[in-house]
């Protein structure tokens, strides 16, 4: 039986083992005017996004899930974070395709027009191009190391050994 509440349109976290956060009900009764071009970020949406951004040290807003990205740019971003060795325990992904308030709201919240969007320690890092450039020039590795969000070396070794 499905136990998920029918009205929970909230951001469903797309990350693997991560706990499910209770964003529900924030979006159920606040759908105001539906204009695709001009939409103001409601207080509730802003708060929900704020919480999402702070849910783990590394947060990616993407199209689709890490397992099945729905856009080449989101896929590339996930791959980069994987290559860098970001600790899954410190990472969460939010699928913007599951919630239109999130999809529009995050653009205003970050003042950034496209998705994916990466946050590290609640700070906006950039979209796919910036991530790619930082991956290539070594800045990303440096940032992730500084923020201590990579899989610990000993854990990696333990996983690698049979």
């Amino acid at each position, binding site marked *: 039986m499905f136990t998920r509440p029918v009205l929970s349109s909230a951001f469903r976290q797309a990350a693997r083992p991560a706990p499910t956060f209770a964003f529900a009900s924030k979006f159920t009764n606040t759908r105001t005017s539906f204009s695709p071009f001009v939409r103001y970020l409601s207080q509730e949406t802003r708060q929900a996004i704020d919480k999402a951004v702070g849910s783990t040290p590394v947060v990616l807003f993407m199209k689709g899930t890490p397992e099945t990205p*729905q856009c080449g740019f989101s896929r590339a971003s996930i791959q980069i974070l994987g290559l860098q060795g970001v600790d899954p325990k410190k990472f969460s992904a939010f699928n913007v395709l599951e919630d239109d308030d999130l999809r529009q709201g995050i653009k205003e919240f970050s003042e950034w027009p496209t998705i994916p969007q990466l946050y590290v320690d609640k700070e906006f890092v950039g979209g796919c*191009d910036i991530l790619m450039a930082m991956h290539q020039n070594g800045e990303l590795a440096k940032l992730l190391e500084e923020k201590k969000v990579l899989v610990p070396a000993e854990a990696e070794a333990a996983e690698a050994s049979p």
Partner: protein
Amino acid sequence: MAGNAVVTEAGLKTKLIEQLQAIHVEIEDMSGGCGQAFSAIIVSPQFEKKTTLMRHRLVNKVLKDEIAAIHAWTPKCSTPEQWEQQKAEGREPVAPGKDTTGEVVTGTTA
């Protein structure tokens, strides 16, 4: 700009030259024909002393409506000085999609 107007390479180029005083703009339609995905090389003195993030934000501001209307936007921003250096070293940035066989980005609209 009306939300449903078609975004063209020429239109994007004009805006960037006018509003960012860009000295070099290359726009590449990498959508494979649907007009939804563009990549760009932009060289402007206004990028001076700005981080990549700030440069992108500047471009995003100028092309707010256009970017909202398309699915994919991949800018590469350089200052005139960087651009000269890149050319001198023979590693000019190439707009992604330029020399591909029409690789299409799958996904949904922005």
